[in-house]
């Protein structure tokens, strides 16, 4: 029995994703070993006795051979056991699951904001090339892309929190009101999204201009199809492919960027979790958190790859021809 080309494509992407995850896990394990500093000594501080350091090293498994530690780590990951936090003794999975929703919310809010603002800007610029809006948009977009996120964050806080007192700075809110939580999401999400708004707008403009020059669009125009319909129903879907690809990578970058946003805005999340863990060489937490980020990143890339089948029907046809 032979599988359909689309299923084979999905299968091959899945295998690649699993391989990437395995390589990333091994690489991650190796990298944590290269970081200087004895985790037990860092954890216990200046007043630790050699006996305490030794006992902690044993508890963290640092006295075992490297290969054994790697195999134990991989075996545990496969069983869904990400280890225990060496400081609190709590399962690392619990710690990660506790804060992951905050990071995910922040990342999705930033992506949402970038798409909601970047796509219309890109479309308008592409349909009005050379206009003052297009020219101002180009300069602004490049400025947004070039500005480091932390600088944007500080300016946003200064303007909206310190001077205007409109938006809060710290945390995710207390008391459970969604209004408060949403309000506290605005500044961190905006500081993450701003460069992506510019990026998406520029990218979409360029690819939309290219698609609008293609033969099938000219044919549609010749048949008298309304311009709005041509742009938003025919051209945008094709022009969105590079943007979707970039957004797929962007999820990973935004997850990484969320670390800075969580530190600057004192929000809970994977960023603050890994930041604290690195400072005290809490390896199980560092490894688990980075593994989750790598997992989300590769999964998003897989979904991005699969989305091409829907966005560009020509890909499905090409897979069929190659059979």
């Amino acid at each position: 029995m032979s599988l359909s080309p689309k299923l084979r494509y999905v299968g091959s992407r899945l295998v690649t994703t699993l391989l990437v995850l395995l390589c990333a896990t091994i690489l991650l394990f190796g990298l944590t070993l290269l970081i200087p500093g004895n985790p037990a000594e860092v954890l216990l501080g200046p007043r630790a006795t050699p006996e305490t350091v030794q006992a902690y090293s044993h508890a963290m498994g640092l006295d075992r051979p490297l290969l054994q530690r790697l195999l134990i780590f991989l075996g545990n990951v496969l069983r869904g056991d990400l280890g225990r936090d060496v400081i609190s003794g709590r399962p690392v999975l619990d710690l990660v699951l506790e804060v992951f929703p905050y990071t995910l919310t922040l990342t999705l809010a930033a992506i949402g904001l970038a798409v909601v603002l970047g796509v219309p800007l890109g479309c308008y610029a592409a349909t009005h090339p050379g206009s003052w809006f297009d020219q101002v948009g180009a300069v602004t977009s490049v400025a947004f892309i070039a500005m480091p996120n932390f600088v944007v964050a500080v300016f946003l806080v200064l303007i909206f929190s310190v001077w205007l007192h409109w938006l809060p700075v710290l945390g995710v809110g207390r008391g459970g009101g969604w209004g408060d939580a949403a309000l506290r999401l605005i500044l961190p999400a905006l500081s993450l999204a701003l460069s992506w708004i510019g990026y998406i707008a520029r990218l979409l403009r360029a690819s939309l201009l290219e698609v609008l020059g293609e033969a099938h669009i000219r044919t549609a125009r010749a048949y008298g199809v309304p311009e709005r319909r041509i742009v938003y129903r025919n051209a945008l879907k094709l022009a969105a492919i590079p943007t979707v690809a970039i957004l797929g990578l962007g999820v990973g970058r935004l997850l990484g960027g969320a670390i800075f946003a969580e530190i600057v805005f004192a929000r809970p999340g994977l960023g603050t979790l890994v930041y604290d863990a690195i400072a005290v060489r809490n390896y199980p937490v560092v490894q688990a958190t980075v593994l989750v980020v790598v997992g989300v990143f590769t999964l998003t890339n897989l979904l991005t790859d699969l989305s091409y089948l829907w966005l560009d029907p020509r890909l499905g046809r090409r897979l069929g021809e190659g059979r």
Partner: protein
Amino acid sequence: MTDFSRRRILGAAATTAILSATGFPFPVLAQQGRTSITLAIGRDIQGLLTPPERIGPIEGNIIRTVCQGLIRFKPGSFEWELSAAKTLTQVSDTEISFELNPGLTFHGGYGEMTADDVKFSFELFAKPTADGKPAGYAKDWASLDHVEVTGKYTGKIMLKSAAPQLWLVVLPDNSGLIISKKAFEAGCYRSDQQPIKVIGTGAYTLAEWVPNQRVVLKANPDWKGEKPAFAEVVLQPVRDPKTAELALRANELQFTPVEPADAAEIEKEKDTKLLRQDSINYVWIGLNVEKPPFDNPKVRQALKLAIDVEQVLAGAYNGTVKPAYALMAPGLLGYWADAPKPKADPAAAKKLLAEAGHPNGFKCTLTLMSKPTYQAIGQIVQALLGEIGVQVDLQVLDAAAYYAVGKGDSGKNLDMALQRFGGKADPAFQTQWFVASQIGTWNWQRWNDPQFDDASAKAASINDKAERNRLYIEAQKRMEQSGAYIWLTHEANIFAFRPWLKPAVLPNGDDMLYDRFTTA
């Protein structure tokens, strides 16, 4: 002109009602109530919340607010006053007797505090932890033999030898706090149990800990002492000092430590006050006396003469701290008032270098921790030593890597290190790191001086204050003669807060008395 039509007013009222119902906070309109204060802490709680196993001052400050000791520090000083104890008397060098105030009840229904709880709390330091490890702060009670319970409220603390530092470093501090034996045995104080329970008899209870978000302390309704000024103290982990400063300016925080270099700028803000305390910590540049060319006393002396400490402090701390001339800070027992106050003299330094066989200087490395202030110190020192031909490479490391670099055999390769240790009220705490047995651990200068070791050991084991003072000054003279220590500063603690708040901080700057924060 504004149109106040009926429709507009009704619309605005409806919008307000809907937003209020959803928890919309209206930051512009919000008025900061004076029953609750939000204070910044540098990180979240970690580890267990018991006195012997606390990780550091953040946990210690919380336990101190929830639990009582026999005695406690007065705000802003290292003087102590009675707390849970009605009396506390040094009977002999090895015996301290106590009597508890009756009626001190542990919250959460864990009953009245008795002498059994005191015995349990102090002897817990000698017991291995649940994982079989020695407790992190076991050394604090190393001199304890046992606690003898003589009545419901009375007992004797029996020591193996005289331990004067107990009165300043242990009994009024976090290691002297009394926890409930019953609550401990019921699994309280453990951070791996959610919700965490910390049971004490203090002015506040630990009402809530939301990991990575906040710690909420609420006034203890059963507290018999002076009523705390605030019904609620919220501790907000803010890892970035700049964020804390901005949050203070946005009135989301009412109190935060600030970097000395930022103090002048923050002081210009209206509705913000600064508290500046000279600290008892110590920052110095240490030279590895085992490694050439620093094994030559003339080289060490030359470097000391080349570094203009006042210039370093003006650049790195914006002139907010005073120079240090010896290990003990002013005000501490053993403070050496007549310590030499050398003036920088690059010409004399060059001459000494030439005499030591290095007329053209040499190359070396200064290891320091990655913090803006320390990096600024490193750069200024680099420039100053460059003037006498000593080329300094800066090795800037993150905390974990930095703390590893002077340990064990790797410490033999250190040239110079910029170091900073926290001080405590008793000089025994300060001198303990510089003895020969600490080589390869915390004595990164690898300085071995039996006379220093003898003087500090003797001073730590006698109660005669005058003699202790003399011995500690003697010990510091030995340090000075070694030339291995270039003292920079005892630091200053600077805190920014709302003008209506009166904070309560101990002189080391790390220890806070949250229960004694009041309105100005």
